[in-house]
């Protein structure tokens, strides 16, 4: 099992958001994590990546059988855990090429590979940029500065392509995208699907799942996974909304 989450509880500023998550993801799979606003979807993504603002209060997360929660965030990243941020933050004055090369080489060094030099990296970068239809001017622009919403999301997918993670968590990468941008982003994700990696697709809407077909769909409500199923579940949510799920969940917890 690539990722195994058992009874995970997590809090932010003393407020418990995750209240016992159980989830298992195998290599080669795409899992969609859906749910209404405030259900804990983004928190789950941030906790797996190791955001310092969240405190794990109970439970465990195993990554390739090892305790993920013990690893500092940069080690998780180098071990192949990638988070595509919902709101990627800007780094003024830091050129994309400089940032991405440092990121790629940090991971390569960790994996015992030789660092790429400037020319090798540029080749590699250009190849991956084509995947998300990124303009050449992107290379020298500062990270996420003056980017449109769509560009920021494409940049996240580009970084995922460059870093070749084993576990990619995409946190609402589809939200706020127009249909063309969605198509590019989804195309990028599909090309990165491989038998040896897994994708956790955190989303509010069903529409990206028309492009990226998930193996499993989980619905989060009140910090727990209240329902799991296949692709049909996503379509049912699209048709019926989230209310019935929440009602079911409340009925269960009574």
């Amino acid at each position, binding site marked *: 099992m690539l990722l195994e989450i058992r009874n995970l509880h997590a809090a932010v500023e003393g407020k418990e958001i995750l209240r016992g998550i159980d989830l298992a993801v195998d290599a080669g799979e795409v899992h969609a994590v859906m749910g209404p606003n405030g259900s804990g979807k983004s928190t789950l993504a941030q906790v797996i990546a190791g955001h310092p603002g969240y405190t794990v209060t109970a439970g465990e997360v195993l990554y390739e059988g090892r305790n993920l929660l013990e690893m500092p965030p940069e080690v998780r990243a180098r071990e192949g855990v990638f988070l595509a941020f919902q709101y990627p933050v800007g780094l003024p004055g830091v050129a994309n090429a*400089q*940032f991405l*090369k*440092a990121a790629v*080489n*940090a991971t390569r060094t960790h994996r015992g590979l030789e660092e790429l030099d400037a020319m090798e990296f540029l080749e590699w970068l250009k190849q991956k940029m084509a995947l998300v239809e990124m303009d050449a001017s992107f290379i020298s622009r500062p990270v996420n500065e003056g980017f449109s919403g769509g560009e920021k999301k494409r940049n996240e997918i580009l970084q995922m392509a460059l870093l070749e993670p084993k576990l990619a968590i995409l946190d609402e990468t589809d939200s706020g995208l127009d249909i063309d941008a969605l198509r590019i982003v989804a195309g990028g994700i599909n090309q990165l699907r491989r038998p040896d990696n897994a994708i956790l697709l955190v989303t509010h809407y069903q529409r990206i799942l028309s492009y990226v077909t998930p193996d499993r769909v989980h619905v989060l409500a009140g910090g727990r996974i209240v329902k799991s199923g296949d692709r049909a579940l996503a379509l049912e949510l699209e048709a019926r909304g989230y209310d019935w799920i929440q009602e079911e969940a409340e009925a269960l917890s009574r």
Partner: protein
Amino acid sequence: MSTTEKTIRALTEREYPYGFVTPVEADSLPPGINEDIVRQISAKKNEPRFMLDWRLRAYRHWATLERSAAEPRWANVRYPSIDYQSIVYYSAPKQKIAASLDDVDPEILRAFEKLGIPLEERKRLTGVAVDAVFDSVSVGTTFKAKLAELGIVFCSFSEAVQEHPELVERYLGSVVPHTDNFFAALNSAVFSDGSFCYVPKGVRCPMELSTYFRINAANSGQFERTLIVADEGSYVSYLEGCTAPMRDENQLHAAVVELIALEGAQIKYSTVQNWYAGDREGKGGIFNFVTKRGKCAGPRSRISWTQVETGSAITWKYPSVILQGDESVGEFYSVALTNNYQQADTGTKMIHIGRNTRSTIISKGISAGHGNNTYRGLVKVLPRAANARNYTQCDSMLLGRQCGAHTFPYIEVANSSAQVEHEASTQKISEEQLFYCKQRGLSGENAVSMIVNGFCKEVFKNLPMEFAVEATRLLDVSLEGSVG
């Protein structure tokens, strides 16, 4: 402590690598200052009469200032009173005048080599001519002959006084008169060496000229003077670097730099200042009280100052431009980093006198530890300066909770056609920025370096290549990935 703070602490608590002392025998005057000391300095340097007279005028002026306690106290820095009678005003390595650089005391050559400035012929930096100043004297200048072929004079100040007295007499004190301020007066009285450069009409200097200042002796002050004259239509790029040993006592560095750009000439002056900053508790370090000013004397002349100030216990300096010629341009690009108990009060003055003159000020202040960083700037537009333009941008970055950033911009406009803009910002490295970088596999130290370096980018891009590298290294940044 937040993760950002921990990372910043780890990054900023590095050792000063240039704190060594070189064992050389010194020829020093006794500590203290009086007319006799001034006469002795002048005599040691075998100066012509006009120099001695100039020094004495400066000394007498300084003495009246000292008696009336006129040492400037308006800067936003705190330090104990300086005992001017305990400072050694002249200290030179004891040796016969070296006929060539290869005859210089090997200890001194080794010292410079350790600092990354090899002076020997075969090891020299390509494309950079260096004047190496060790305590009070210049120990050698590289590429002198090659520059002379183009008519460019690049030598120590002492040599210029002997070989080109007419140029020195004409321009010395023409931008910073000895009456300018307390420290300029002191410097004028006792300065012992420095660099001199004259670029003749229409000549574009083919290499970077550079002076490397090294304080070595204990209890001595360093008072050097740099004078650069760019004749009509010429161009020169000048670099200045500085380091000093780690000592528990504060040492005074009071330099004066004067730049003169005649019609259509351009001078680019870059500094990477890394004097010893004192220890973590704020003990020791250099008091860097420096007067730097350029005069755009002719029309369409241009002077730009770029400074990266990372050292010194206290920095007090305002590299300025007098925009006298019509359509002249003045620029000031600055990065000042204060860490531990360092204090910096730095900025610029842009004095618009001529018509259609333009100036740009970009200041980046970074404060960490208990450091205090002040930007102080004056933009002055005189009545004749029709259509003068200024753009000022002052950005501060705070790393930690105990440091401070302050901005004192002064704007005085006496011509209604002038256009003056001022922008300012204060920022921190956010937890989100740090987490974003770590999520991409960067270590916290790397992330902070990269973000700080990005913050300084607008200034660094104005540095010559070699210096840009030095500057980024100074901020502990590996600027890998400069693609293309």
